[in-house]
């Protein structure tokens, strides 16, 4: 005769219920260490919202491909329609009037105005304006806007021209980018001592984790350089250039800093040969997806050109820079959270202003410690506003 115990033994938990319990326990076991890592990351000092920081944490912890894929879906679903009502005016940039642009009474070089793509041109379209109110006859930074795509006449690109003979470019590490360890990280903002000379600041390109490229900081290799990748380089003599890198993984003796980001988008004045998606672009939003994009180039005199606009593909960004006069260029950051160009209208980092009013981050972005690395443009010693 079976005992009461053995009779009850057969009333075991159904298989599916046990499988569910195992899955639940496994999920909890996975979430404990992941949660600790996430909470620690969120507790660190940062100046972006929780959502952005969470996405960045996911990217830094193996989720880059997932984030990029979701972004691709999102931006494809929210892609803008072609056409639309034409604009009647452009956003106001700079402080000088249109008449103070190139061709004024000075023998100093001024870049030619950007020829508008869409006719009739809007007032001030493509005309360079001074970024600072006290800038003399040789303003170190000029700004302009123009409609960059006839198929999308509502889109406005912002472009800045930076006189390399009067300014010096500095690479400023952020709080989290480049990642530790890094000697001489600095304050992750425009240093107080240098603010009287700062004329502009702008975003510094993809994080090393996602760019799969190199970085030389203060003459030392932080991340091995990669041949063929577009590189912003400052030499020890203060000269700045944007070049495809061909000097191997180490730091040449004459290089002070070099930041790499993706393949070149303009070479020899022509659009880059690799503007379509490919493995050399890494895990990022597809190149044909329209999103905030920014880029940096040099004109044929070695002056810097920065461009940014919403709803751009890699190719349309390259065309903006090419139209503005860039002969070599690279793409910097994409997405509204990372794209910033800020000019300072008064000495002492006074009255900071975004290049385009639609730029999401505040103009004071680089006057407080920032997550990401960035570039600061200072007047050279002896140069006056």
């Amino acid at each position: 005769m079976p005992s009461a115990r053995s009779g009850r033994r057969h009333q075991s938990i159904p298989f599916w219920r046990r499988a569910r319990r195992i899955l639940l326990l496994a999920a909890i076991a996975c979430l404990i260490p992941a949660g600790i890592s996430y909470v620690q990351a969120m507790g660190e000092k940062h100046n972006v919202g929780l959502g952005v920081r969470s996405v960045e944490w996911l990217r830094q912890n193996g989720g880059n491909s997932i984030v990029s894929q979701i972004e691709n879906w999102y931006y494809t679903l929210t892609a803008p329609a072609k056409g639309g009502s034409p604009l009647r005016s452009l956003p106001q940039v700079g402080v000088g009037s249109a008449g103070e642009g190139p061709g004024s009474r000075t023998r100093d070089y001024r870049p030619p105005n950007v020829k508008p793509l869409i006719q009739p041109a809007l007032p001030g379209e493509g005309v360079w304006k001074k970024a600072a109110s006290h800038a003399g006859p040789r303003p170190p930074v000029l700004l302009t806007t123009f409609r960059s795509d006839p198929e999308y006449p509502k889109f406005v690109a912002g472009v800045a021209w930076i006189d390399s003979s009067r300014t010096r470019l500095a690479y400023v590490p952020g709080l989290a980018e480049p990642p530790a360890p890094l000697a001489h990280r600095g304050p992750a903002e425009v240093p107080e001592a240098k603010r009287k000379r700062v004329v502009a600041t702008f975003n510094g390109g993809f994080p090393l984790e996602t760019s799969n490229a190199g970085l030389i900081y203060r003459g030392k290799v932080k991340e091995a350089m990669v041949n063929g990748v577009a590189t912003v380089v400052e030499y020890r003599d203060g000269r700045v250039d944007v070049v495809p890198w061909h000097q191997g993984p180490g730091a040449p003796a004459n290089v002070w800093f070099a930041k790499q980001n993706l393949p070149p988008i303009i070479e020899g004045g022509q659009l880059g040969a690799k503007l379509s998606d490919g493995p050399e672009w890494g895990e990022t939003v597809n190149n044909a997806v329209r999103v905030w994009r920014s880029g940096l180039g040099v004109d044929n005199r070695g002056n810097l050109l920065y461009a940014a606009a919403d709803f751009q593909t890699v190719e349309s960004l390259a065309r903006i820079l090419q139209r503005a006069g860039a002969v070599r260029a690279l793409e910097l950051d994409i997405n509204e959270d990372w794209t910033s160009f800020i000019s300072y209208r008064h000495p002492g980092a006074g009255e900071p202003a975004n290049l385009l009013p639609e730029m999401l981050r505040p103009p004071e972005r680089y006057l407080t410690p920032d997550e990401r690395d960035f570039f600061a443009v200072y007047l050279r010693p002896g140069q006056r506003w």
Partner: protein
Amino acid sequence: MRLPRDIGPGAAARRALLADVLIALGIALLAFLLAAGIGIVIFVALPTLLVLLAWIATEAAVRGVRRRRLSSAFKTGTRESHAP
């Protein structure tokens, strides 16, 4: 050495729970070893947890509603049978 087979339901339940916990830890360890990073693990584990919790909560709610209905039907039946 074999585990005793003739055990009470409480002991059997505890034994099953221990086995499930060990299997779950093994799955978690495997996930951490195979995934590209901790971000991927959380990306999969969090929705899994939420779905399972929602499932369990729904099941419990349905069970509770059924029990209440049965209980009220039983009470109603009792009252009717004792009605004068």
